[in-house]
């Protein structure tokens, strides 16, 4: 009896000696305050600068370092330097959209077909081909961009630098995204659905078109959105492969101007690109919701694991 009183008394004291901080850290049921703080501070750090950059594009003055809104001067009103009236920026916007849409249209089908094939084709040649595809995925972009520049200037001379070379280069760089995303999805789908379709009398082609492809739509959409977003932002490959000034897309112009003497028009151009990307992402998301209507869950959490 007296013993238990003793222990009951000494325990809190020894605990108290361990200090408040350690006790707090040692409590497995406490709220993850530190992690939560890190996360929200990180998010603030990652997103607030962008808000500032967007706000600068609506500046009245020429300053790029402070926000003094609100005008559409650099978007529209300035007759020479605004995004809308500067003819160079104008052609650059069109070039950007042209490159991204074309790349998306070429790279996604190539990549999806490749993913389907490589997922079911086993053997030594398949391993080799797969190796090359993964190599193109991890290769730093400067290596790829420069080697393409060299190949178009020394070997494939019939392809002029400019739009054709840019598209060929971008597709090469982007082709692995759909492959990786679609393969990850194929892995979760498994072969059962297709085999069921064929047991019910479908030919291999029918089973792909009617069963497998619809199940792959989310992955295809995700990869299309990624390819578009990544291409419209790309300036490494595109810059090395651009020929005349008219073939420089907006990203290259922004890169050049950001180093020279940036005006809020550069911010306006960047904001415009952001809008274009967000519209495509939103479209992809809406389509995704429509396509996966009958399937479980859906939503962002699912889409995120596609990466």
């Amino acid at each position, binding site marked *: 009896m007296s013993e238990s009183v003793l222990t009951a008394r000494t325990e809190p004291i020894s605990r108290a000696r361990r200090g408040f901080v350690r006790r707090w850290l040692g409590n*497995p049921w406490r709220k993850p305050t530190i*992690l*939560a703080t*890190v*996360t929200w501070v*990180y*998010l603030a750090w*990652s*997103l607030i*600068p*962008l808000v*500032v950059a967007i706000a600068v594009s609506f500046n009245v003055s020429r*300053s790029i370092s*402070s926000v003094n809104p609100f005008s559409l001067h650099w978007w529209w009103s300035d007759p020479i330097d605004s995004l809308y009236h500067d003819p160079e920026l104008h052609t650059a916007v069109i070039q950007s959209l042209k490159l991204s849409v074309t790349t998306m249209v070429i790279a996604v089908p190539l990549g999806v*077909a*490749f993913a*389907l*094939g490589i997922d079911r084709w086993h053997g030594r040649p*398949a391993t080799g*081909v797969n*190796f*090359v*595809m*993964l*190599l*193109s995925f*991890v*290769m*730093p*972009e*400067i*290596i790829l961009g*420069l080697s*393409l520049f*060299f*190949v178009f200037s*020394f*070997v*494939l001379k019939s392809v002029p630098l400019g739009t054709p070379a840019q598209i060929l280069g971008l597709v*090469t760089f982007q*082709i692995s995204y759909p492959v*990786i995303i679609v393969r990850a999805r194929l*892995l*979760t789908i498994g072969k059962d659905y297709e085999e069921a379709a064929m047991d019910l009398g479908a030919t*291999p082609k029918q089973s792909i078109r009617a069963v497998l492809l619809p199940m792959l739509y989310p992955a295809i959409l995700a990869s299309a*959105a990624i390819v578009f*977003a990544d291409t*419209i932002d790309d*300036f490494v490959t595109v810059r*090395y492969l651009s020929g005349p000034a008219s073939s420089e897309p907006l990203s290259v112009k*922004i*890169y050049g101007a*950001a*180093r020279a003497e940036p005006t809020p028009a550069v911010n306006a151009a*960047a904001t415009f690109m*952001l809008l274009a990307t967000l519209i495509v992402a939103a479209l992809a998301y809406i389509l995704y919701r429509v396509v996966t209507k009958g399937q479980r869950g859906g939503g*962002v*959490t699912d889409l*995120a694991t596609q*990466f």
Partner: protein
Amino acid sequence: MSVSSEAQPVRRRRPRRARAVDERVHYSRWFWPSFTIPATIWLAILFILPLYTVVSIAFGTVDPIFRNALPVYEPWWWSGEQFGRVLHDSFGFYRNVYIHTFEYVIVASAICLVLSYAVAYYVARYGGKRKALLLVLLIAPFFISYLMRMLAWINLLDTNGYVNKVMSFLHLTSHPVDWLGGRPFTVVMGLVYGYIPYMILPLYAFLDRIDPNLLEAGRDLGAGPARTFFRVTLPLSRPGILAALVIVSLPMFGDYYTQNLLSGSPKTTMLGNLIDEAVNSTGQGPKAAVFVLILMILVLIPMLYYMRSTARSLTTR
């Protein structure tokens, strides 16, 4: 197996080696390989051939008058002259550039790892109802151009920018700091800012897959939170950590634009800048090719590691 192959109504010829065909023998042997042919041809011409061209230029010769590159495509005629010269400079004139590159990449990757592990861990384990929102915010940078994100920092770090304003308001500095004037700190921060999203998402996907029962088992066996983390979670996430480290450090090694936009000073030159400068000045094509080759050799091992782990994750889960 043989039953199902006989059940096929029309089959022009039996596959000689059943091993080479899919187990169920539903498909002809060329059915699946044919899907990969277009992309394979594309990569052969526009990926393998260009890489070979770089090697041919790096080991090729130079026009004695115009100093432009004369690629040599036959390996038996290759000369190591260009390569030797640049390699020699790499240990002399360019030594600091290599040291900078490694310093910046290692420090930036380490910061990326600590930060993104904390964020990914929080979202994966404690995201709760806010998980979708958090994920949207974490994915957002993927859809925001790298340039836009660097531009934002050019705005903020300007001598009259908000960072300096806040710092002088808090009396941290008496006069504005020239952040964009060639400071390693700015470059490393830019690298972290630019590449950290690419690390958080894979880490999140990895941590999300760890079975919570394992953590609970650790607890039940008497381990405290710290011990559970160090003995269970961390060892389990090691492959994810390695893959994530590789995925951010590879592009950092080839990065020249972050340095160029946020510093532009020769004091902070990285390997990528050497390549970019060489290719943009006339007569230095061979030098650029050699630098590209050196970069490729430097990143080869992490690249192979990442490819192996990706290949594995795409076939088993």
